[in-house]
C-alpha cells in the first residue's frame, strides 16, 4: 500500500497518509487499522485519524515510541507499506447525547478528530480537550477547532491553555458545575485511567479507547483481552471502546509491560 504523504507534525509525532480506497470508504470514527511496515515488523494497531473517501486516502497519527513504531517512522512518502488492514474494531457509538467531551493525548489527539466531526454531525455540542507536555507537542489544533465547538488545551509546562493535564482541566470544569452527557478519551492508558477517575463521581458515561497489545486484530489470537466489569472482553472485536468505569485498570497497566525486556533486546541489536 502506497504512502502518499508522511510528515512529522510535532516532535516524535508522525502523520502518515496512505492510498487505501476500500478503507477510506468504510472507515467510521473510532476504528483502527493494523500496519506492518516491513516484512520483519510486528503487526501494529493504529487508530484511524482521518480519511477522505473521495480521494481514497486514510491518515494515521503515531508516536515513535518503540521498535514497531520506529519501523513505521522509517517509512516515508512514496514508500510501500508492507501490509495495512482495516477498518477493524467497532466504531464509536455516535448519537445525539447533548454535550460531549472528547479527550485526546499523544496519538489520541488525531484519534478524537473523526469523533468530533461525527458527534457534531449528530447534533451534539462538542468540546475537545487536547493535552501535551508543552504547546510545541500539540498538533492539529486548526482541524480540531474546525470540528469541535470549543477546544480546551492543557500543557504540563503551561505554555498553552491550562497548566497541567486534561484530567485536571476536566475535573475543574466539572467542579465548576459544567455538565457533560458523555466523555470519550483516546490516548495513553494512564491518561484514560485518570479521566475515568475524574468522571466516576459524576456518573458521566465515559468511553475509553483501549490500546492493548494485539496481533491478528481479527478475533483470533486473544492477546488483547481485557477485564471489563469482571468479564473477559477482546479489544479487537468487542472494542476497542469500553466503559472506563468498568475497565480493570490494574490488569491493563500490567499487561502493557509484558515485553519490556524484549524491547530492550531489539534496541540493542
Amino acid at each position, binding site marked *: 500500500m502506497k504512502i502518499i504523504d508522511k510528515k512529522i507534525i510535532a516532535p516524535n509525532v508522525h502523520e502518515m497518509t496512505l492510498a487505501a480506497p476500500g478503507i477510506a470508504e468504510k472507515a467510521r470514527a473510532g476504528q483502527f487499522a493494523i500496519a*506492518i511496515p516491513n516484512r520483519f515488523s510486528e503487526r501494529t494497531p493504529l487508530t484511524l485519524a482521518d480519511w477522505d473517501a473521495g480521494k481514497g486516502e486514510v491518515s494515521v497519527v503515531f508516536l515513535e515510541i518503540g521498535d514497531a513504531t520506529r519501523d513505521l517512522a522509517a517509512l516515508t512518502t512514496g514508500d510501500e507499506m508492507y*501490509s495495512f488492514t482495516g477498518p477493524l474494531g467497532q466504531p464509536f457509538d455516535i448519537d445525539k447525547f447533548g454535550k460531549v467531551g472528547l479527550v485526546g493525548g499523544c496519538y489520541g489527539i488525531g484519534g478524537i478528530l473523526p469523533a468530533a466531526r461525527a458527534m457534531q454531525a449528530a447534533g451534539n455540542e462538542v468540546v475537545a480537550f487536547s493535552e501535551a507536555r508543552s504547546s510545541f507537542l500539540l498538533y492539529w489544533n486548526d482541524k480540531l477547532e474546525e470540528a469541535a465547538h470549543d477546544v480546551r488545551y492543557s500543557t504540563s509546562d503551561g505554555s498553552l491553555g491550562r497548566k497541567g493535564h486534561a484530567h485536571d482541566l476536566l475535573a475543574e470544569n466539572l467542579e465548576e458545575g459544567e455538565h457533560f452527557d458523555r466523555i470519550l478519551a483516546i490516548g495513553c492508558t494512564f491518561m484514560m485511567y485518570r479521566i475515568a477517575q475524574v468522571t466516576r463521581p459524576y456518573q458521566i458515561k465515559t468511553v475509553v479507547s483501549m490500546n492493548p497489545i494485539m496481533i491478528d486484530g481479527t478475533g483470533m489470537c*486473544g492477546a488483547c483481552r481485557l477485564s471489563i466489569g469482571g468479564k473477559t472482553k477482546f479489544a479487537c472485536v468487542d472494542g476497542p471502546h469500553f466503559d472506563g468505569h468498568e475497565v480493570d485498570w490494574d490488569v491493563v497497566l500490567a499487561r502493557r509491560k509484558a515485553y519490556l525486556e524484549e*524491547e530492550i*533486546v531489539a534496541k540493542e541489536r
Partner: protein
Amino acid sequence: MAKIIPTKTPMREQPAAQRVRNFDEVPHGYSLEEAVQEAKRCLQCKKPFCVEGCPVGIDIPSFITYIKEKKLREGIDRIKETNILPAICGRVCPQEEQCEKRCILGKKHQPVAIGRLERFLADWERNEGKAELPVVAKKTGKRVAVVGAGPAGITVAADLVKQGHEIDVFEALHEPGGVLVYGIPEFRLPKDIVFTEIDFLKKLGVRIHLDTVIGMITSLDELLEEFDAVFIGTGAGLPWFMGLSGENLNGVYSANEYLTRANLMKAYLFPKYKTPITVGKRVATIGGGNVAMDCARSALRLGAEESILIYRRAREQMPAREEEIHHAEEEGIQFNLLTNPIAYHGDGRGWLKNIECIRMELGEADESGRRRPVPVDGSNFMIPADVLVVAIGNSPNPLIPNTTPDIATTRWRTIETDPETGRTSKRGVFAGGDVATGAATVIQAMGAGKIAARGIQAYLETGEW
C-alpha cells in the same frame, strides 16, 4: 505370494536431542527405495476400505501401485485428482484415524504407511520443481468469493477453479494459509510447502487478496452483489480460557496467541523478526490435543529449559495424535496427567509464578464415552512456571456472524450448514471448516471444503436453492 512385512518401513527423523533446539522438520521423508519397499506392503484390496476412510476419497491403492512401479508422475497426478494439497495432508492428517485405520493389513500388523507415501509423492514433485497444471474447464463466467485462505477455503478454490469459475480468495492476515501458517509449527509443516501449494493455486488463476477482512471492509451482502456464490471458511476464533483467577497475568498465553507469535510472526527468529515472545524458563501447557503438543514442543525450541504439559485426563484419553504424543515424550516434555489447574498465582509484579493444580481421578464415562475426570479433594499442589499456554480450544471466528445478522448460527456461534451441501441459511452462501463445525482438523476442513465445492457447483449449474 510374498511374505508380509508386519511393520511400516521406518522414516528417518532428526534425533530428539538435536531437534528440540531447532525448528527444522522432524521426519525426513522416504527415499525412493523406502517408498517402493513400503508400497509393496499394500495388499491392493478389491474393495479398498482405506479410500472410504479418507475424507476426500483419494484413490489410495492406485497411487501406491504407481509408486511400486516407480511411475511417480502418474502417482502424484492420481492423488491430485482429488486432493490438491498432498504435501500438507501427508504430514498433518491423522491417518491412523482415517485411511490407515481401515487398512486390512492393520488388522494383524501395522497398516500401510499411506500418509508417508502421499508425502513422498508430493515432496518428489515439489523437489522436481515441475508441478503440472491440471486441465481447467472452459470459463463459465461465474464468480465465486472464498472468505479465508485456510485449508477449507483453498480446497474450495482449487476444486472450483478447475470447473472454470473465476475465484477470488479474501484473507484477513498478511499471509495466505490460515492455520497452516499461523498455527501449525514449522517443524511439523514447513511454511515453504504451504506457499508452494498456494502458488500452484495462483497459477491456476485463483486471485488471493491479503489484508482483507470480510465483514469489515466489505460486507457479505456486498460480496453477493458481485459474486454468484460465497464460501465462508473463516476458521478459528477467540480462544477459550478456563475463567481461573490470575488468567490475565503476564506470561499467560492462549495457544492461538503463542503459536501465532511463534509461527506467523516468526518470533523464533527474534530479534531479526521483531514480534517478541516470552521464552520463559519453565513453560506449562494446558490441554491434551494436537495444539497443546505443538505449544509444548515449540516451547523447548524457543529456548525454555523445561516444558510441562498439564492434562486433566489420562494419556489414553488425549485427543492428540499418537505420533505427536510420542514425539513430545521423546523430546522430554514432562506430562502431568490427571491434573487440572485451579488458579494462577503471580510474583507480585504482574507475572505468573505458580500454577495451583489439583489431582484428578477417572470416574464414570461421560457423554463423549470417556471416563470423566473428578477432582481429588485436598490434593492441591503447585507447579512453578513463568509461562503458561492455555490450549483448551476456541470458539469459531465471530466476524461474519457479528456483521451478518441474517445468517443463522448455532448456540456455539458456529454458522449453521447443511452437511450434504455446505449451504447456510443465506441464499448463495456456503460455509465449512472450523467456523461451521467448531475446532477440528485440517483434513476435516478440507473435507468440508470438498462438500461445499460440490454444493456450490450444483447451485451454479441449476440456480436452485
